[in-house]
């Protein structure tokens, strides 16, 4: 193909009907405080892992809620469980439990987080 220096973008709409939001459900049920997240990004700003790599808990929270699990699965084990995010969260979200439950949910379906 001729290289014009640009290409067509892939379709970017999210189809909620096709997304699997059961991981989010699993977490809501066991850690109700997950619902309180306002996606402020406080957690990502302080994150120990985020200091070294592109890892954002805020983004993960959004992705889980949307049911875009594949991306979450690739990211979530990078967390070091250090607990800084829990301490800074203005909404009192028990963030470490959210992460742990997400991993657990993946594990229960036999598709370990990577």
């Amino acid at each position: 193909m001729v290289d014009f220096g640009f290409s067509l973008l892939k379709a970017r709409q999210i189809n909620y009907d096709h997304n699997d939001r059961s991981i989010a459900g699993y977490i809501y049920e066991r850690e109700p405080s997950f619902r309180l997240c306002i996606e402020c990004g406080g957690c990502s700003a302080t994150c120990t892992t985020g200091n070294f790599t592109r890892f954002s808990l805020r983004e993960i929270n959004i992705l889980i809620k949307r049911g875009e699990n594949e991306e979450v699965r690739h990211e979530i084990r990078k967390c070091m469980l250090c607990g800084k995010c829990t301490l800074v969260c203005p909404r009192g979200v028990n963030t470490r439990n959210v992460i742990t439950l997400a991993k657990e949910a993946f594990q229960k379906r036999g598709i370990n987080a990577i």
Partner: protein
Amino acid sequence: MQFDPFTIPFDIGLYFILIYAVVRCVRWFMDLSRPDKLRLQRGFFGRAFGQSIREIFMESLIHRKILKSNPRLGYMHMSLAFGWFLLILFGTIEADIFGESHLNAPYKAIFFKFFNPEHGSTGFEAFFAFLMDLILAFILSGLFLAVLKRFSSKVVGMKKTTRLKPLDKIALTSLWLIFPSRLLAESFTSGTYGTGSFLTGSLGSWLASFLPAEQLAYPFWWLYSLALGVFFILLPLTRYMHIPTELFLIFARNSGIRTGDQTGSYSEIQTYSCSSCGICIDACQLNFSAGITNIQSAYLLKGIRNNDNVNDIAQNCLLCGRCDKKCPVGIELTPIRMIRRRIGETEKEKTTVLKRYLPDRKNIVPVKSNDKQVYNFLPAVESEKTDILFFAGCMTHLNPAIKNSMIKILNASGVKYKFLDEKGGVCCGRPLMLSGQDKEARELINYNSKLIWKSGAHTLVTSCPICYKVFKESYYLDVEVLHHTQFIKMLIEDGSLKLNFLRKRVVYHSPCELGRGSGVYDEPKDVLKHVARLEKTDFEDDNSLCCGGSLANMKLSFRQKSKIAHDAAAELTKGNPDILATACPLCKKTFSSATETHVADISEIVAEAISLVQIKRNSGKKYFSIKESADIL
């Protein structure tokens, strides 16, 4: 030959339990690892033997530790255990001296009165009868307390009593019946023959005055024998299994066997040694502050014994170690909980009665995580050479005041050091470990180890007790690890740090990971005494409280955590001190929002006390640049 058929239930029970105990012990011994077997053998034939005998006497019979922590509960346990022991001992001696022959079968000692109803009227015999009555009264007083405790645990000074299963109930009933039926049987016999001392004698003659004592005695002897037999046969299925198990445990522990980090025979022995005394339940803040009453160690052990899925119990715990330190049996509760965290979820196994008498050997393979490296995004290790390293840790970075105070102290004392995670570092690995993810934790540990090793430092100072514990225990490094309170104490002692005395009243909260977790109790207090007036609280050293913020618990809600923090802070600040001092950035953060009292880390107090002269002399410009940056923060 004296014999009567009513002794048969007792005989069956007794020989059953003796043989059973031997079989179980042999199985436990066989399941020990090779080094542990050697340890036990050496312990059994060495000095540990005497120690064990003494401990068995003091703890299994007298129950010294329970007596110390709760006299009424202790008396209850002691009167039952020690009293029963004395009853058997003197009963055997009595039967030996006064019986028809020497070296009698056990039943003759137990049912001595039945076979020698006329014994005990004069002289030495009467003295012995008096002694036996006294012991029986001693036991009955304890039993009375035990019955009361079942119905209202407040009687023995406990807040909660342990819950029971049906078989436990039958065993408990038979245990309760043993001594009253003995009392009545002996009384009726004494009443008939006009013998017996102050207890059985008087009760007997009184009962005989309006009841047909002669006819009634025999059924009660049957009841006594039956109660004993049933109790012995059910014993392995109930919590009373702790009686024989604890003896084995004491020998094993004195021989130097420890839990370690794998399930095995020793942790199984410990789970069966729990007497359900309930002391761990009373000690637990989740119980008395947060109202969570199903996760305490007594329930954990019970769940493990019943092959339940105990993952939720194991996870919902602060790992504060309060129960561990208070358990009178000395069960290593924290390591056992950590093992269960590593194991994770398990299937509940169906058990048959036979299986409960002889449980399978348990070999639970921990859930495997996939073998991919997780933290391969971390940059290559680079370290500058230095002698002393300062590692603040994640939590300290959330507390700039502590970080800046440490920098001020280090600069003022003029030591040469490098700040390892000045621009933010990698987590020490302890939080992952606490959640049972050892493999991931190891990756972080290896990364940090390389950093430290490459710096060539001989001393590593950290401000966070969580980091301190993992550096000390799980990093295999050739450096001296110091918590900053220990380091500050050294600086004060060798004169490099000159401090003013602050006219302030301070109480000290000992952080779990530093105090109970690592045994550092004195240095922080010594430092505080040096700079301020340290006052005592009701919760010192081993008995200190948890702030509730523990990273070990991910299951607590925000509200429950803050309830624990409020309660703990209220207890500590009862005397209205000027400062609630602690030595952990996480404790500081948790307490700060839970009390009106000023909360400060020891480093902050010390930094405030540094004399100005010294700052100028040792650090000059450097300090002021830091001060400026602190002001901006």
